[in-house]
């Protein structure tokens, strides 16, 4: 739907709130006054007319609230109100607040330091000298290629052909034999877990 128009009017309400509230107030007042004036013209006494106009309009504040709801600004009013209420309640019981804050701080701090340690030990360190020199070999092939991947795992390449990073053992042996570029070629296999006791 008309998303742009909604966004524009919503942001207008968020930014120029005071101004628009005054406008709404003036608009409602104009309505009630005009209706009262019409009633006077039809023969109703002035005091009675303004009373009736007010009653027939209905609850002014509830209608204004419905206006705010229809603009999507009431949600933010409610949120702001809730935050203020929360702040007030927390201020009223400083003991509870202090305990809550301290326990949250301790828990978050402990979690963060344990994660930093585990991250360093388990993920960041590769456990080899010069890890930046490591390369993972990839084969780019097409349908006519005689080399194929092991397990049939391959990924399509934009513009035709496919690539894979898992080789059959004969291919690995041939790569090793004919390597004149790389310092060393080694193979590894995923999903094999081994334990070596000293």
């Amino acid at each position, binding site marked *: *739907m*008309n998303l*742009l*128009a*909604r966004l524009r*009017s*919503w942001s207008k309400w968020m930014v120029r709130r005071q101004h628009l509230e005054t*406008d*709404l107030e*003036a*608009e*409602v007042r*104009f*309505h009630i*006054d*005009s*209706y009262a*004036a019409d009633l006077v013209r039809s023969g109703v006494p002035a005091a009675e007319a303004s009373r009736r106009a007010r009653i*027939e*309009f*209905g*609850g*002014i504040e*509830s*209608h*204004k609230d*419905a*206006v705010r*709801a*229809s*603009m*999507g600004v009431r949600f933010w009013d409610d949120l702001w109100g809730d935050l203020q209420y929360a702040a007030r309640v927390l201020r009223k019981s400083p003991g509870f607040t202090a305990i809550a804050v301290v326990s949250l701080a301790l828990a978050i701090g402990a979690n963060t330091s344990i994660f930093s340690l585990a991250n360093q030990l388990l993920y960041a360190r590769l456990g080899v000298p010069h890890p930046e020199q490591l390369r993972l070999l990839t084969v780019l092939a097409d349908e006519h290629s005689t080399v194929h991947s092991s397990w049939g795992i391959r990924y399509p390449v934009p513009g035709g052909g496919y690539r894979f990073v898992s080789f059959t053992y004969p291919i690995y042996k041939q790569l090793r034999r004919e390597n004149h570029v790389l310092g060393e070629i080694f193979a590894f296999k995923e999903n094999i877990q081994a334990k070596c006791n000293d």
Partner: protein
Amino acid sequence: MGKQIDLLQGTLDMLILKAVSLGPLHGYGVLLRIQQISGEQLQIQQGSLYPALYRLEHQGWITSEWGESDNNRKAKFYRLTAAGKRQFQSEAEKWNHMASVIAGILRTRPEEI
């Protein structure tokens, strides 16, 4: 005046769009215009007009501007936008279609089945 009935969902929006399509109006004017063109048969609950007006403006169907009323007071005038015109046409079409379908059902006599 007759008894209070609930307007069908979306009906008030359509009536407002129709009213302002006949020329720019302030809120109170929209109310009077709807009463007038309904031959005084329809009275809208006054305050409920404003949430609808603001919603329609929010959706971009109508736009508003402060101007001077007949009695030389500042009043906010609403006017239909191009998008509002399209919206009104499609709403009116849907309404007329629905109304004719239901009228057809209500007219049916036993021998016609």
